[in-house]
């Protein structure tokens, strides 16, 4: 292993981007979930804090931090404390193997262009607006009883930070416009920037390995709580995870057969371009077309893997109170909550990567430069958001299954169908369809 400073800095930038995305999934999607459920059930939903209730997540976070952190007297103290961390670690680490945009070569010099100007000015305007919203929200906190002072100071601090970046961004904009071509310093010039944290040869296996550890968080939490309902939740979580991981992995095998590699960047590059159906219709070469059965199985199994309705048997609030996290409060509960949304985010990104061409934009050969990077990044975010939205949509549309039906569906329907998908793909490959 050898390292040099620019490589480390580029890696840190990638980690920053991905971690920022993963951490922002929870607040943003809690808002989408609550407003979306309100839309589906024909009621207003949270609309008090911030415009359209957008700052509700901030208030929720403040509430979680200020709540009392209870530990049941009969609980196994160490495991009770460790369990939320067991749950969160797989959710945060799995995103490391997903490529999130088209790679590009960092140029030797950059000149001022309209795009860069637009990004800088747009960023400045966005920060200004966000700062004003933060101040408005802070004034709202005055109406909430208890610890108002702390909340107000946090809000003011955030607003000041946001306002401070506005002159900074505008300053860079004006300096850049007048300075002419700028050489890229510190040896970054000419380096290839591949937007993935860990481009390992066993990418998808690493994803499955880490995500399969997610069940320990639920199982340990349920057992350590010393509560019958928690225990039932934990046992359900383990049984469900074992059953549906099989279908999930087998559905992905079809993709791996077609691509001939386990590296996720290669899987995405192979899906760019077009595939001509019957010599007339050009379709994007996405895996969804030849492996439609695999796509559906993977998608449904992803619901079971992330414990979302109609498969949320580990918490099933109508049957076992709140399942494995019945006894949890405060930030320990918030960690489970965050882990659930992060797992949803990463599995949505994986569905997009495996079956919908990842960052690929159909009918457009993305250039290997900064424009291509931004456009493909936007495309990746769009696809991931679509699958994330379907998670919400399904939750408020489809009721929970019966537990025995879940097991039957997993073992008697999805497993044979996933095997059938592998056979179909294995027949299609020598025919030249994939």
């Amino acid at each position: 292993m050898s390292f040099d400073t620019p490589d480390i800095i580029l890696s840190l930038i990638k980690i920053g981007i991905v971690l920022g995305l993963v951490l922002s999934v929870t607040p943003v999607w809690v808002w989408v979930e609550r407003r979306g459920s309100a839309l589906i059930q024909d009621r207003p939903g949270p609309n008090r804090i911030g415009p359209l209730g957008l700052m509700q997540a901030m208030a929720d976070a403040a509430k979680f931090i200020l709540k009392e952190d209870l530990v049941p007297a009969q609980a196994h103290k160490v495991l009770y404390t460790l369990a939320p961390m067991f749950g969160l670690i797989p959710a945060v680490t799995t995103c490391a193997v997903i490529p999130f945009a088209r790679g590009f070569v960092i140029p030797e010099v950059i000149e001022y262009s309209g795009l860069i100007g637009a990004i800088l000015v747009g960023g400045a305007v966005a920060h200004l607006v966000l700062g004003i919203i933060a101040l408005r929200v802070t004034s709202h906190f005055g109406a909430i009883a208890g610890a108002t002072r702390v909340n107000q100071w946090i809000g003011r601090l955030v607003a000041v930070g946001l306002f401070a970046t506005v002159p900074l961004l505008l300053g860079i904009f004006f300096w850049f416009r007048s300075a002419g071509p700028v050489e890229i310093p510190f040896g970054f010039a000419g380096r290839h920037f591949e937007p993935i944290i860990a481009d390992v040869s066993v990418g998808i296996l690493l994803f499955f390995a880490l995500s399969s550890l997610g069940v320990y968080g639920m199982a340990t939490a349920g057992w350590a709580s010393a509560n019958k309902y928690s225990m039932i939740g934990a046992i359900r979580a383990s049984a469900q995870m074992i059953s549906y991981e099989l279908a999930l992995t087998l559905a992905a095998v079809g993709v791996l057969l077609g691509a001939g590699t386990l590296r996720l960047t290669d899987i995405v590059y192979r899906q760019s371009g077009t595939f001509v159906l019957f010599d007339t219709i050009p379709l994007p070469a996405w895996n969804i077309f030849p492996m439609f059965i695999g796509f559906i199985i993977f998608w449904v199994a992803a619901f079971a893997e992330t414990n979302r309705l109609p498969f949320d048997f580990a918490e099933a609030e109508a049957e076992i109170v709140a399942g494995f996290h019945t006894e949890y409060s405060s930030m320990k509960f918030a960690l489970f909550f965050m882990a659930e949304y992060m797992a949803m985010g990463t599995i949505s990104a994986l569905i997009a990567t495996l079956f919908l061409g990842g960052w690929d934009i159909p009918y457009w050969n993305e250039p290997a430069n900064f424009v291509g990077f931004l456009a493909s990044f936007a495309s990746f975010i769009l696809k991931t958001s679509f699958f994330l939205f379907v998670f919400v949509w399904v939750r408020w549309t489809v009721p929970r299954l019966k537990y025995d039906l879940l097991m039957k569906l997993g073992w008697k329907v999805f497993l044979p169908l996933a095997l059938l998908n592998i056979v179909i793909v294995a027949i299609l490959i020598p025919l030249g369809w994939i």
Partner: protein
Amino acid sequence: MFEYLIFFTFAAIAVIFSAIVVIHRNPIVSALSLVVSFFALAVMYVLLDAPFMAALQVIVYAGAIMVLFLFVIMLLNLAQTDEPISRPVQQFLGITGAAGFAITLIYYILKAAVIHTGGPAVFVADARAIGVTMFEAYIFPFEAVSILLLAAIVGALILSQRTSAIAKDGGAR
């Protein structure tokens, strides 16, 4: 240097948590410690340039087998976790045997082990190479093992069928 740091950290984790598996009285803690130990072992595979084996180690052992173990332990719901020490003869034999094995192992490792610092890679342990080796050179053992596993599955099915049949007619048979 960096590799040594990682190796010794995770070697220590593997050894400590393996010891916890044996020593700890609570079966759930033991099972979870075994998961940590498997994970540390997977890091060893990464250091040996075998990321495929590392991923499989975590998927198969930590992700599947240990989940099943934990599931069974929870279902049995062992009431008496702190079992008093009985059977002194067996305990004596077990400790003596384990200690003898450990001493022999340490003796031969100290005698034979040489720390290699970067030699030529003999075998590239990626998915393709492992697949080719398994399905060409070792196809017969591979098929034999799969038949053995099939027999085990059928056996388990028959055993569970028989107990449920007994339960149905009230254990009259």
